[in-house]
């Protein structure tokens, strides 16, 4: 994006300054909308869960309560940040940043449309996997720096859970990589052209569920939120955080949710491609929908599932959670790697041409 702007700037500025300015503009263009989506995702969550539980949800601030996220943000910003006694001050402050920074950095390689990507790197999938694996440090450092038993227990649980589910997630990505033959996210989407049947959803159906479930565990959403576990360890790793430091943890969690939804849509649901490609009447009927529109539609559907699951399922017990990760999901993904290998060998279906 913005190659023309960079070329224009470098005509009268230093080269490195032109690159720096373009980078900053790109970052703002990508990160600002995501932060706004995060804000109103919290509103959507409260509304959706409210309606599922036959309540109204937030409805006081602004029309239909639409300004509630702004009120929440203002409240969090004006609250005092309390440092616990004996806590390690530097690490205590760094922990929320460690949680948020990778969740934002991962957006560098996410394509929003054909060519609408900040960095079109050819190892995009690996980059996402590597960057999101750093997020676990936010949890660990927060738990350790708070100097509290509850926070420490939450951090131990959380890091063990995240590492376990990262393996299943990595294997699910391997199957996508095998079928697409590329780690570039734009190439992966372009490999799914030709209507709903050509999406990777069908040959990788079990991997779709494995990836989404692992995504739930990675983002610590119910039913995998043992890391917070209000009933047992108060609020887990962020029990000692208040004000905006707590708010940053929330930002990171919701930014990760949106990231996982984007990745699922891009890898399994054809990204920005229309589902009606190649179907005579429907294709022309929906030709007015922009690429970003389809992607946003798929992502909102997946985000709704995140909220829906939270309203539906109780929390997993810790041993059940570990069993699901190690004894169900990981063997299934390893099996599916071989199944995809066989499919590739026999050039099965429209996916391996």
């Amino acid at each position, binding site marked *: 994006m913005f190659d023309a702007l960079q070329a224009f700037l470098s005509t009268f500025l230093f080269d490195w300054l032109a690159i720096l300015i373009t980078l900053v503009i790109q970052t703002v263009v990508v990160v600002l909308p995501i932060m706004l989506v995060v804000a109103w995702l919290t509103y959507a969550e409260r509304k959706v869960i409210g309606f599922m539980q036959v309540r109204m949800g937030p409805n006081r601030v602004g029309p239909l309560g639409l300004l509630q996220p702004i009120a929440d943000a203002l409240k969090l910003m004006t609250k005092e940040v309390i440092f616990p006694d004996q806590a390690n001050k530097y690490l205590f402050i760094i922990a929320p940043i460690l949680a948020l920074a990778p969740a934002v950095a991962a957006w560098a390689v996410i394509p929003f449309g054909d060519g609408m990507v900040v960095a079109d790197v050819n*190892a995009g999938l*690996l980059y996402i996997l*590597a960057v999101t*694996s*750093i997020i676990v440090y936010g949890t660990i450092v927060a738990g350790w720096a708070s100097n509290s038993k509850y926070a420490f227990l939450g951090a*131990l649980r959380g890091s063990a859970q995240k590492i376990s589910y990262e393996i299943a997630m990595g294997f699910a990505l391997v199957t996508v990589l095998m079928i697409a033959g590329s780690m570039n996210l734009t190439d992966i989407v372009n490999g799914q052209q030709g209507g709903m049947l050509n999406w990777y959803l069908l040959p990788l159906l079990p991997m779709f569920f494995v990836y989404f479930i692992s995504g739930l565990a990675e983002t610590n959403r119910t039913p995998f939120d043992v890391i917070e576990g209000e009933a047992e360890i108060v609020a887990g790793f962020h029990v000692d955080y208040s004000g905006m430091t707590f708010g940053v943890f929330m930002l990171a969690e919701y930014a990760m949710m949106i990231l996982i939804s984007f990745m699922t849509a891009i890898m399994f649901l054809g990204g920005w491609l229309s589902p009606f490609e190649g179907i005579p009447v429907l294709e022309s009927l929906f030709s007015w929908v922009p690429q970003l529109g389809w992607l946003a539609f798929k992502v909102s559907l997946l985000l709704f599932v995140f909220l829906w699951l939270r309203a539906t399922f109780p929390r997993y017990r810790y041993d059940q959670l570990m069993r699901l990760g190690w004894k169900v999901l990981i063997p299934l993904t390893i099996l599916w790697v071989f199944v995809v290998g066989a499919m590739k060998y026999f050039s099965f279906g429209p996916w391996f041409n």
Partner: protein
Amino acid sequence: MTFELFIFYLLATIASVSGLMMITIKDPVKAALWLVLAFIATAGVWITAQAEFLGLVLILVYVGAVMVLFLFVVMMLDINLSIMKEGFTKYLPIGGMVIVLIAAMMYLVLGPNNFGLEVTGNPVIHPADYSNTKAIGLELYTVHAYAFILAAVLLLLGIVAAITLVLRRRPTGEVRHQSIDKQVKTQASERFEMVKMKSESEEPIKPKEEEDK
């Protein structure tokens, strides 16, 4: 100074400083975190050298998995730092000799005789669509296939050895297992039994005045 050079010097400085901090700082948890920063900066340096696969795998494997487990262990240790610092002067001469020895060996390998543009030639600059991952994969699975399989078997052997070392079989009956399958398949009817019984009601207390009469 080009932008790439600036990025390289920035990452190299971070890597060197965090490496130094890692060996000088006393708290083991902080040392581990500095090591993590050193890994990330090194991965950045590798990526600027067009080895993006290695850089990303370094982050994924070492930062995302190995160092987390390390931190896990280190965080739960209760180390008395004053005991660790004892005997520093006693071991200083031996330590110094080891340092000199290692530095000399490193100089022999990494010294100006073996490195520099005259020896290695200018680095090859690949076009933007060059896939480092594909190049490594082709080499690894064709030319070095046997070495690759051997390394994999060695790692498997390591896992099996570690598990056998700590495996402690206990007689059946001493260990209680739970059948997760049974727990998952449980129905409401097995957990909750409705019992039919007559409703009980308390006898109303008679008003006082009636007793008086």
